[in-house]
């Protein structure tokens, strides 16, 4: 417990002393209060459990899409894989949920006048320059690592980070702690100017 408190309060104060050359808070932030949005997601989880018997999650969507594509090019092989034997790709709840998450993001941005229509975020440009190719390579590599990690751990920042933690699932808390350890370490390395 003591160690946890230490980690919660000492690490952030150390980091605020570090200088990364760019500051995330110089760019535009949220339209709504994080407490309002957090409460909304918390309440949304009551509804998904009650009405759909489902927890909020997103990462399995990408495995489903990968399964569909795999079945186009190598149907037998894809169907023979252990993961797809247990989780056959289908247009199911999780698939529709994430498609509609895109729609929800669009509605929120459109109503709030926040449609970005950009290939590079200004913070990326300020740190790494304006090459879309570089962003593409880094983003793709990040996606590969992220999806592999999510499938190995059994969920993402939604499935473990919100749904698993709120159900007090021990493995979800473990996963989230390691997600942030890996993420904070990697991000600080990426943004430390040499």
């Amino acid at each position, binding site marked *: 417990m003591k160690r946890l408190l230490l980690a919660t309060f000492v690490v952030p104060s150390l980091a605020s002393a570090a200088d990364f050359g760019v500051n995330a808070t110089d760019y535009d932030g949220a339209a709504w209060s994080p407490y309002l949005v957090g409460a909304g997601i918390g309440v949304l989880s009551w509804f998904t459990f009650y009405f759909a018997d489902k927890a909020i999650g997103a990462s399995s969507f990408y495995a489903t899409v990968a399964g569909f594509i795999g079945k186009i090019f190598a149907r037998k092989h894809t169907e023979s894989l252990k993961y797809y034997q247990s989780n056959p790709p289908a247009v199911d709840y999780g698939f529709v949920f994430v498609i509609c998450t895109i729609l929800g993001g669009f509605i929120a941005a459109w109503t709030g006048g926040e449609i970005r229509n950009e290939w590079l975020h200004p913070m990326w440009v300020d740190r790494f320059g304006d090459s879309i190719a570089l962003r593409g390579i880094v983003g793709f590599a990040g996606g590969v690592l992220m999806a592999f990690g999510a499938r190995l751990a059994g969920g993402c920042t939604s499935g473990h980070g919100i749904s698993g933690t709120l159900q007090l699932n*021990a493995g979800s808390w473990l996963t989230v702690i390691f997600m942030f350890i890996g993420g904070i370490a990697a991000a600080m390395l990426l943004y430390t100017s040499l």
Partner: protein
Amino acid sequence: MINPGKAVKESSAPPPAVPAGGKLVAAIIFGTAFGFLLQKGGVGKYNVLIGQLLLQDFTVAKIMMTAILLGMVGVFTLHHFAKVNLDIHPTKIGAQTIGGMLFGIGFALIAYCPGTGAAALGQGSWDVLFGMAGLVAGSYLFAEMSGWLKRTVETWGDKGKVMLPDLLHIPRGVFIVILAVLLIVGLFALERAFPR
């Protein structure tokens, strides 16, 4: 050590059955609401997400902690009255420390996560498309290796279904109250230290 059968109490009465068609309608409504909230919360934005990893912007932590607080209290109340099922996944120490770490490194590179990335696409942050292509490729890579991983990494420290109150030998209700208080105190401290 921990008997998962005892650790995860079942509802005394079955929750309401949901027809398949109703589930897809639910997915449309809930998915849209989720994406809407994520975008309004700013977590579809590159700088807000990377800002959390650089510990410059605590929007992500504030949203997650508030969602956990409200979600926990509500879902366990509903579960107590046998209105919902819990969906507890096994704790696998090896797979989840390694998987969590890989996810985190990926997070720093792509800047979006699987859910917030979907909201980012909706708001027209097209750079997420590269990350999404990677997510699809990485998922297939995992599936390709899933047979081997299941026999090796996923067996390392496989503890079965474990919940925190059982791990710490604290009654579930007491644990929920303690964690709720810790989350509230933590949120106040966070707001004082980091207004954003």
